[in-house]
């Protein structure tokens, strides 16, 4: 059954020839193609869909689109499950499964409803008051219970299997919303040659033209909308998107749009994204987002079966669905009469209650001529029917409208209410527009814009069709013409519509005598009139404070239906006009957006780029374990057989100390520096002297920031008089290049130097160990590797099988070592040759862990020591600081704190038991039993297992470190209750005189 609540007048917007089966709360239902989950459920007479957030009150549908505060469902199952979806925004597909959320064990019998019975214990601010004491109960008792009872939907715990995409667009004019004003603006702008994007949230274009009985030219509103859309789609300069919500308006006219690409399709292709995020940089934005109807506040106005009147009309006209068969229309304005007239077309007579004394608007007259029962000066005081309304208590309002008389109970199965209209100003507000309060409309409208954004139609407070069209065409032409200057104007078509009388400035019904039913303002956060009254009574004045105290407008719907009623109520109590009370700020997103869409394709390996060295596949084939170094994948270690990590690392490090190892050093930053002032630049950025470095020699350099802290280190080689090859650490490669560019372009533009990153141009392999020279001799027989011909810090350029090779005699491991650099595309070839020739010398690859072991044993500083808090002195690098020249950061080194002899300086640390590894990050203290705060003397920065001495070894910084060598301290790690007695030694643990590199 596709439902018994269907209209007799058929809608051409749903496809009755295609039946769609779906499941809600375990029961099977049928709807038509084009139905939303909401319209299909209502057609099947299902109104109870969820439980409210705080009191677990039974809730049904209020709206028909993004304004829906109640009907949030959990969609799908398993890894595709999705919580908090508005049933009004979901188009049903074959086999769709949905269920109610926020209820246990079932939507009809919900244990949490006890909160409703106990609601006097849940007043405004109840979180702040009730659960404050005792403090220790908060985390352990109150919070978990509240969470469990008040939880919304459930997030899936498995990865999202769907595909999401991002798209970037630029256009001249973005039009948000395809009602009459939006269509007019898009048409005018497109005809005038502008590149236009038209976005519509719903499946159908046309906005109010789909539900209003109007004519444009000689067509019905809907026909004109269809024709206009077809015309726009045919134009090459227009992109038309339905099911697309522009939810965010950011700086410089950057807007973000969320497109539901395949949610409405049965079994979409796996290559079709589910949803797409569009970043649209628009020259101009036309905000034609329309308006949202305001509810009225009366007793139990949240019961299932109580709708916005406009929603009832749209359910009938667009979805062919009846929200009830015994309706009461309850209104303070003319627009709700449309619902009564539409019911009448389906042979249903509605009772109309109008809070006004009278009205002679066209729609009212039409209703009268249809013989409908209209009661002026009347309203609903209360309703009955907990899971679905069954009757309403209605009555006459007295002249002050503060009490009812002649109360009577009328049977009904739905109430369609209207408290007037609120322009949808969210996007304008997000764009920085200072809104103003329009006292005729009783609503805020855009006023003072900050960005290139123009509201038109009802979003701008222009509620007649004639006005909307005129504004749309004019704005579309003006904005496009400022860009295209085509001067091609589009004629505004004539239009016919009903006239409207003023609304009643009255939204909150008095309570029936002797009763206190809740009159809700914010349905999603369960904020009632009494909560707002309490907040004001307790002294909250600013609307921002009332909002936070009561949580009014703070739910996921951002108060789309509740903000103005809340404001109005505060202003009534305070006897102020609304603009004096102020309004809260709208923030993106306008409607909820899936995390998947925000993330897009940037998941898994696509989360960020991966940089691989030319020898990557060799490492993989040799059982490497990689580590992430920035974006680079670097070999960490190469386990053999059953080796643990420490087994492998110790073997690799020891092989370098005893024989020869090879390490991929491609990821080190490389910068090519050229120009007549190249040496002068180095002299200014490094702390040591560079002018006299001979061609063919490398030098170790340290660079500082202007505040004197060590920024980076590395070796730089003079390739020719005016040409240098600089290396940086892997981590700082990009920052060093930016740093050099800043000084060359901004500070010293007179220097004639160019810098260029060549990191990826060179493939580098470090060959380290006492047998490295023998290996090199065999590999490059034409090169003289004697120390006289090729000394430490020397460069030799040669050829290998026709490949240009740069050999540097530099060392990070502290052993005799060479670095072989070839162009990247020869990197793998060279590496294989080295391995082949090196076999007889016992060559083994070593990774970053062994490299760390080797440099820690030698006391060479690296990232953990260069932590941005160390001046050269702290790291024992004062010998690198030239006294004869100025350089970046030098003046800072004179600061008192930086010459303090008791500064924390680099030391070595050995556990007294020679067994216990000292965790990196451990604090150094004199007495591990001292009362807190225990004075901290320093910390451990890098730890390793010394393969040379076969015991743990660490380096770190220690207050007055040099004078503490030989002393015993404690390395403490309070988080894990670790305390290790340590002996302070020199940071140069192995080969303290540095003889090995020079052999």
């Amino acid at each position: 059954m596709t439902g018994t609540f269907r209209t007799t007048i058929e809608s051409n917007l749903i496809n009755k020839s295609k039946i769609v089966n779906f499941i809600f709360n375990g029961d099977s239902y049928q709807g038509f193609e084009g139905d939303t989950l909401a319209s299909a459920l209502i057609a099947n007479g299902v109104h109870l869909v969820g439980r409210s957030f705080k009191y677990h009150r039974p809730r049904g549908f209020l709206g028909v689109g993004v304004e829906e505060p109640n009907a949030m469902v959990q969609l799908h199952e398993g890894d595709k499950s999705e919580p908090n979806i508005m049933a009004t925004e979901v188009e049903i597909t074959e086999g769709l499964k949905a269920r109610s959320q926020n209820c246990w064990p079932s939507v009809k019998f919900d244990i949490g409803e006890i909160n409703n019975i106990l609601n006097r214990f849940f007043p405004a601010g109840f979180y702040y008051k009730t659960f404050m004491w005792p403090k220790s109960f908060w985390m352990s008792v109150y919070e978990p219970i509240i969470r469990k009872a008040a939880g919304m939907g459930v997030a899936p715990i498995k990865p999202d299997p769907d595909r999401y995409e991002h798209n970037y667009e630029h256009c001249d004019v973005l039009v948000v919303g395809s009602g009459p004003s939006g269509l007019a603006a898009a048409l005018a702008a497109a005809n005038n040659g502008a590149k236009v994007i038209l976005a519509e949230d719903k499946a159908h274009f046309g906005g109010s033209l789909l539900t209003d009985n109007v004519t444009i030219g000689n067509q019905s509103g809907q026909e004109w909308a269809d024709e206009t859309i077809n015309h726009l789609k045919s134009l090459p300069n227009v992109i038309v998107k339905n099911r697309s919500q522009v939810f965010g308006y950011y700086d410089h006219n950057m807007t973000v749009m969320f497109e539901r690409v395949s949610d409405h399709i049965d079994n979409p292709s796996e290559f079709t994204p589910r949803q797409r995020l569009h970043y649209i940089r628009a020259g101009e934005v036309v905000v034609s987002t329309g308006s949202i109807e305001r509810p009225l506040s009366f007793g139990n106005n949240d019961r299932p079966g109580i709708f916005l009147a406009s929603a009832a009309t749209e359910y009938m006209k667009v979805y062919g669905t009846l929200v009830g068969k015994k309706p009461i229309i309850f209104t303070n304005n003319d627009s709700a009469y449309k619902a009564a007239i539409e019911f009448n077309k389906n042979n249903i007579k509605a009772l109309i209650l109008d809070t006004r004394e009278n009205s002679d608007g066209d729609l009212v007259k039409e209703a009268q001529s249809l013989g409908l029962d209209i009661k002026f000066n009347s309203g609903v005081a209360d309703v009955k029917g907990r899971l679905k309304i069954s009757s309403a208590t209605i009555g006459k309002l007295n002249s002050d409208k503060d009490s009812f008389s002649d109360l009577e109970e009328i049977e009904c199965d739905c109430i369609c209410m209207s408290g007037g209209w609120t322009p949808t100003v969210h996007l304008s507000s997000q764009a920085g527009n200072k809104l103003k309060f329009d006292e005729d409309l009783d609503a805020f409208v855009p006023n003072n814009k900050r960005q290139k954004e123009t509201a038109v139609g009802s979003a701008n407070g222009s509620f007649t069709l004639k006005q909307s069209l005129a504004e749309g065409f004019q704005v579309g032409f003006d904005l496009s013409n400022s860009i295209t200057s085509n001067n091609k104007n589009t004629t505004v078509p004539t239009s016919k519509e009903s006239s409207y009388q003023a609304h009643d400035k009255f939204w909150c019904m008095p309570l029936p005598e002797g009763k206190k039913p809740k009159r809700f303002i914010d349905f999603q956060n369960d904020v009632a009139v009494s909560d707002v009254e309490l907040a004001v009574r307790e002294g909250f004045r600013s609307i921002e404070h009332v909002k936070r105290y009561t949580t009014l407008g703070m739910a996921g719907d951002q108060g789309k239906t509740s903000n103005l009623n809340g404001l109005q109520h505060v202003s009534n109590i305070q006897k102020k006009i609304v603009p004096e009370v102020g309004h809260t700020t709208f923030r993106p997103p306008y409607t909820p957006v899936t995390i998947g869409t925000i993330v897009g394709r940037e998941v898994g390996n696509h989360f960020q780029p991966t940089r691989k060295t030319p020898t990557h596949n060799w490492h993989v084939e040799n059982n490497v374990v990689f580590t992430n170094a920035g974006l680079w994948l670097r070999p960490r270690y190469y386990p053999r057989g059953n080796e643990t990590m420490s087994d492998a690392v110790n073997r690799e490090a020891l092989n370098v100390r005893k024989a020869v190892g090879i390490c991929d050093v491609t990821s080190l930053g490389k910068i090519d520096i050229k120009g007549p002032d190249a040496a002068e630049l180095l002299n200014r950025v490094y702390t040591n002297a560079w002018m006299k470095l001979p061609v063919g020699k490398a030098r170790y350099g340290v660079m500082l920031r202007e505040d004197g802290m060590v920024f980076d280190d590395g070796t730089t080689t003079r390739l020719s008089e005016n040409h240098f090859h600089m290396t940086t650490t892997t981590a700082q490669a990009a920052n060093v290049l930016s740093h050099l560019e800043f000084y060359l372009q901004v500070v010293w533009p007179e220097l004639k130097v160019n810098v260029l990153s060549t990191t990826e141009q060179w493939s580098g392999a470090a060959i380290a160990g006492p047998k490295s020279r023998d290996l090199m001799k065999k590999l490059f027989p034409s090169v003289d590797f004697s120390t006289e011909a090729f000394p430490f810090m020397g460069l030799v350029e040669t050829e290998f099988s026709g490949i240009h090779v740069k050999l540097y005699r530099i060392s990070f491991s502290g052993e005799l070592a060479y670095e072989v650099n070839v162009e990247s595309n020869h990197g793998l070839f060279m590496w294989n040759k080295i391995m082949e020739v090196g076999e007889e010398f016992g060559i083994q690859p070593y990774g970053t862990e062994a490299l760390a072991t080797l440099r820690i044993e030698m006391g060479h500083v690296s990232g953990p020591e260069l932590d941005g808090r160390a001046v050269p002195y702290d790291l024992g690098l004062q010998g690198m600081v030239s006294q004869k020249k100025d350089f970046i950061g030098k003046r800072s080194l004179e600061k008192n704190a930086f010459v303090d002899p008791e500064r924390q300086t680099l030391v070595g640390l050995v556990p007294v038991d020679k067994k216990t590894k000292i965790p990196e990050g451990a604090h150094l203290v004199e007495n591990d039993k001292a009362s807190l705060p225990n004075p901290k003397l320093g910390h451990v920065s890098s730890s390793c297992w010394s393969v040379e001495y076969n015991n743990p070894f660490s380096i770190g910084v220690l207050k007055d470190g040099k004078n503490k060598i030989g002393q015993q301290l404690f390395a403490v790690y309070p988080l894990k209750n670790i305390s290790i007695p340590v002996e302070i030694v020199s940071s140069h643990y192995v080969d303290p005189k540095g003889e090995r590199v020079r052999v």
Partner: protein
Amino acid sequence: MLEIKCPHCGKRSQNEFAYGGDATIKRPKLGEEVSTKDWDDFVYFRDNPRGKHQEFWHHVSGCRQWFKALRDTATHEIFNTAKLEEDL
């Protein structure tokens, strides 16, 4: 996301750029005698105005040129951008 006009390349999205701080700061000349106060002013002290601010930007994922921008720190409006040797 801001849209920044690189004076060399044209309008590009903010994610191609890196911010470089106050463009009115002049580094003391090399080798110059600098008082502690002047040096500290250069290294540490910056105005934090609400409103117009001259600042450096670096077109990192583009032409790699540093340039100047005049931006409103409250509204993010960028009034003008200029090459280093030009006036804002």
